């Protein structure tokens, strides 16, 4: 038996053109997001991301079948959120004596959160030196959220951008995990406010202005729960 490939003419050409346009836009957005996910190089990533977004919007305007804008925005926002948290906290856990970490994390701590400044790199567990943030409870949050929340969330966002059903489902799961994150993390911080806000540059207000961005992925929940699931493939 022989298999034949059927061509649907204009439809195939439209599909190909759409795929190419999406990939062209994605290349810019991926590079921009990777740079923004490092934190340090974020300022260089933003214009690249916006250029990619502009390309996608132009393709949509030209009538090509590209990913819905809201899915693109949610997906890349979640990637940035997960990368910043995973990378930052992984550095605090494992590379806490590196120069970049001592400058950036401890520097950030001096301005916004004393938990990452006072007695930085002095944390011990029994006789074992752990280093990094010494704020009570912080290390447990780092371990649990990198492993159970942010890494699966990063994978979910990639799946969402590929318009996969598992991506949408896992993004919903990890958005709900955010409930545990924010209901738990903030009181822990508040209980030890005397450690975390004492003698830093911008106590309270600074942390909230900086961190409010991380709390926004909740806003995706109403969309993710009510979007037509059929637009995502199995």
């Amino acid at each position, binding site marked *: 038996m022989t298999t034949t490939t059927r061509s649907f003419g204009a439809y195939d050409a439209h599909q190909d053109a759409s795929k190419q346009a999406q990939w062209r836009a994605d290349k810019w957005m991926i590079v921009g997001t990777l740079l923004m996910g490092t934190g340090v190089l974020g300022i260089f990533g933003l214009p690249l991301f916006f250029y990619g977004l502009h390309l996608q919007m132009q393709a949509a305007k030209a009538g090509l079948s590209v990913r819905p804008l809201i899915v693109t925005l949610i997906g890349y926002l979640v990637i940035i959120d997960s990368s910043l948290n995973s990378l930052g906290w992984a550095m605090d856990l494992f590379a806490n004596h590196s120069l970049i970490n001592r400058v950036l994390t401890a520097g950030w701590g001096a301005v916004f959160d004393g938990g990452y400044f006072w007695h930085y790199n002095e944390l011990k567990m029994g006789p074992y030196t752990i280093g990094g943030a010494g704020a009570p409870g912080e290390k447990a949050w780092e371990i649990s959220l990198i492993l159970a929340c942010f890494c699966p969330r990063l994978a979910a966002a990639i799946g969402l951008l590929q318009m996969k059903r598992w991506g949408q489902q896992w993004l919903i799961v990890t958005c709900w995990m955010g409930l545990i994150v924010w209901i738990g993390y903030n009181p822990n911080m508040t209980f030890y*406010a005397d450690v975390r*806000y004492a*003698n830093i540059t911008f106590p*309270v207000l600074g942390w909230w202005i900086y961190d409010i961005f991380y709390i926004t992925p*909740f806003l995706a929940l*109403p969309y993710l729960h*009510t979007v037509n699931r059929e637009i995502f493939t199995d």
Partner: protein
Amino acid sequence: MSKKVVSEQDRRRKKAMIVFQILLYSYLIGLFLFQLHLYSISDW
């Protein structure tokens, strides 16, 4: 008919999500205000 039922369900679901978000953000605003209160009585 069935489409109408689904969209009604989605409408209610969306409404519940929004109510949930209002509650959650109120909780976070409460924590923020409490931290401001602590700030006002501490010598940070």
